[in-house]
């Protein structure tokens, strides 16, 4: 079983990803795909005159401030456009994908954090009305029901709070939890960079291998969104996932490349 997370950043090639995954599934490998959509969400937010507001937590984690209006944009882009057009690509390739968000069947459930502390303009502030949270529970039965009946789950990170409210959660950490709960052999995190880079400006500064016990030491190399990918990786490894691979989703056969250790391998 593979859990694959593909980001929503610019330059990511969904055709390459879906073609590669279709081939791997046809060889009998079970897969669960989680996807992002940040670039498309930013584009739509600008068009609707509500530019995205990113906030940084006290310890430097960045995320999208998600008031109700932003949550609607999030649902439209992640669960509407990106999710369904990934499913369409798979259907055209003869793979019977089922697109779900985390709120469907409470596939992904967790604690809503409506009050947070952020740093903005150098000041420490309290932020309210944020519909975000952390995924803590997975509806494994629903996932296995679909997988065992030949479907490919394609999941968007719009999740359910324990009270049933829609919340925005981090896709990488949702993928990490899925990998743990599904006892996945590998968690593959695809984005628009070759892997974890020593120097983000230099794509040749790829860190090829990280020992699973030393993951958090590499946090220093992670900038912005990569921080949460490292956090997710640490959680996956702690939860028993044997191998996590960061690889490039801009080139052909991105998953096969990852399986052949082209990227940053953590084991």
């Amino acid at each position: 079983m593979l859990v694959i997370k593909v980001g929503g950043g610019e330059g990511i090639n969904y055709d390459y990803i879906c073609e590669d995954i279709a081939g791997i599934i046809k060889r009998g490998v079970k897969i669960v795909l989680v996807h992002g959509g940040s670039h498309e969400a930013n584009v739509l937010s600008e068009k609707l005159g509500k530019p995205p507001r990113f906030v940084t937590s006290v310890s430097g984690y960045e995320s999208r401030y998600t008031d109700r209006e932003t949550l609607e944009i999030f649902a439209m882009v992640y669960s509407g456009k990106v999710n369904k057009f990934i499913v369409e690509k798979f259907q055209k390739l003869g793979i019977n994908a089922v697109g779900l968000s985390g709120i469907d069947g409470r596939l992904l459930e967790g604690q809503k954090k409506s009050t947070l502390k952020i740093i903005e303009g150098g000041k420490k502030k309290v932020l309210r009305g944020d519909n975000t949270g952390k995924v803590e529970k997975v509806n494994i039965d629903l996932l296995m029901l679909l997988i065992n009946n030949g479907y490919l789950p394609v999941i968007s990170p719009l999740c359910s709070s324990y009270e049933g409210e829609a919340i925005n959660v981090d896709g990488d950490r949702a993928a990490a939890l899925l990998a743990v709960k599904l006892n996945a052999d590998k968690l593959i995190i695809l984005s628009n960079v070759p892997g974890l880079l020593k120097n983000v400006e230099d794509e040749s500064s790829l860190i090829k291998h990280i020992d699973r016990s030393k993951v958090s030491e590499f946090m220093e190399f992670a900038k912005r969104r990569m921080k949460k990918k490292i956090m997710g990786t640490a959680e996956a490894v702690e939860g028993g996932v044997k191998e996590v691979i960061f690889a490039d989703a801009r080139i052909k056969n991105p998953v096969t490349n990852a399986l052949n250790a082209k990227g940053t391998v953590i084991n």
Partner: protein
Amino acid sequence: MAACIVCEGNIDIPEDTEEGEIIECPECGIELEVVSIDPIELAPAPKEEEDWGE
């Protein structure tokens, strides 16, 4: 100036303080939220929650 709601120590409120800002009581070190500016109203700041959305 405002009084800390825990230790009643004096807390200096800078001119450019904004609503929702968090300030620390210099005496007991507790973090307080500036709930309103005019009049100044303070309340315990929420616990630090690192878990974040996409």
